């Protein structure tokens, strides 16, 4: 993946703010943290710093806007950061698309790569408190596939794992098995929310009742629940929403989007910090729109082609020695007093 293609040129602020960029470990150039503080318009928005930071984004750093102050983090730098800054108050990891049971050419050993992902998580400088699995835990919704995935996940340093289902987890039984295993505490088709250290998390299900020719779908019952669930929160509460299929329109031709996500996003508009974590597309992708950061994680099983770069979105075969470079995990840190969450992707090899 070449970040210079998806990178950002510092042109206008609005362009930069809606920019798409790839986080890519191999292009990490910045080995220091910078804080930029220019407030010439006296409105608390650091435009020049923002543009400078967005230029760095092309090198693979992730820029965090924190109430007008910009901080950039690179993966390699993360280890050098002062513990009080890097540690933050809440640290968790996102993994996705483990597809336990898949055994075709693109990856004949998804057990090994999931184990490698857990090892990576266990070696993070800041131990994640819990994991978010954004779906496609299994490949064919078979009991032994769920069992094997659970066994491997248990070896992680994190105390808990929170799940949302992928379309591969609800095959043949409309999600009955998934709900029995992972959704006992959840509503209806498996959505739920919880709070950790002042951050509100909402796990959504957009892989049920899919219609012919359609995209992912949340449905009215879930949307009504979400609206109600968010109502009681103050606008300064950081919110993390996680679901399997992207909640923004990545590539509708391949079903990479959710029909009714706009409605869900409208309920999130008033919050100062919103992070949307998704999976499904088996590659990292990121977008910032206002106060909302959208992020998709890599798979721990196999990569898929970039939008439109192949006939279909199926498993993408790469040379065996390169496979782990296309798989990965994501670390997320929240620091008390800071607005946005810091998201850092790490490849498996």
């Amino acid at each position: 993946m070449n970040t210079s293609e998806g990178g950002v040129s510092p042109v206008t602020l609005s362009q930069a703010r809606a920019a798409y960029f790839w986080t890519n470990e191999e292009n990490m150039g910045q080995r220091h943290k910078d804080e930029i503080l220019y407030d010439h318009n006296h409105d608390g928005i650091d435009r020049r710093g923002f543009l400078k930071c967005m230029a760095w984004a092309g090198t693979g750093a992730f820029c965090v806007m924190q109430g007008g102050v910009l901080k950039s983090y690179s993966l390699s730098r993360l280890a050098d950061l002062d513990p009080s800054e890097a540690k933050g108050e809440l640290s968790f990891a996102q993994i996705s698309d483990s597809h336990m049971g898949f055994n075709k050419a693109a990856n004949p050993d998804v057990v090994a790569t999931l184990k490698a992902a857990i090892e990576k998580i266990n070696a993070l400088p800041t131990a994640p408190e819990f994991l978010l699995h954004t779906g496609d835990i299994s490949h064919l919704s078979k009991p032994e596939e769920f069992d094997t995935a659970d066994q491997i996940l248990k070896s992680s340093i994190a105390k808990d794992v929170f799940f949302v289902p992928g379309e591969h987890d609800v095959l043949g039984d409309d999600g009955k098995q998934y709900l029995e295993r992972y959704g006992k505490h959840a509503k209806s088709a498996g959505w739920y929310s919880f709070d950790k250290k002042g951050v509100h998390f909402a796990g959504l299900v957009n892989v049920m009742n899919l219609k012919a020719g359609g995209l992912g779908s949340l449905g009215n019952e879930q949307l009504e629940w979400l609206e109600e669930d968010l109502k009681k929160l103050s606008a300064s509460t950081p919110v993390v929403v996680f679901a399997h299929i992207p909640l923004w329109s990545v590539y509708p031709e391949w079903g990479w989007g959710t029909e009714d996500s706009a409605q869900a996003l409208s309920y999130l508009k008033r919050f100062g910090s919103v992070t949307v974590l998704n999976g499904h597309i088996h590659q990292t992708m990121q977008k910032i729109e206002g106060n909302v950061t959208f992020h998709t994680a890599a798979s721990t099983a196999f990569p898929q082609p970039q939008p439109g770069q192949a006939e279909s979105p199926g498993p993408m075969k790469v040379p065996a020695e390169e496979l782990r470079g296309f798989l990965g995990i994501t670390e997320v840190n929240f620091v008390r007093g800071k607005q946005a969450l810091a998201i850092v992707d790490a490849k498996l090899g």
Partner: protein
Amino acid sequence: MKGKKKVIVWIAPILAFSGLYAQAGKSANAGRKESGSGSEVKIDNFTFAPGTVTVSAGTTVHWVNRDDIPHTVVSDDKTTFKSKPLDTDQEFSYTFSKPGTYSYFCSIHPKMTAKVVVQ
């Protein structure tokens, strides 16, 4: 000498016949894939091929998944026919007794759509 001639004489018609059968087999197959009037649908690369199959009432249509990802065959109304998840090389069949147009899709990857026209 006599023996040799006999063998040659018998072999020739056998070769000619097998040649004819091979031709017949080939054209029948070609007809099924191009015109979509046969009763086989191949699933590969997130596509049902052929996308439209036209059959007469009472025909059984067979689907086979040649993709490296599982797919399903589900009628749009989700009740008329509904396969279990088909992994690579697994098959599904349904007999269409009533005329009509039956649109269907893959419930795992709903952008995959196709139809069966029953006459």
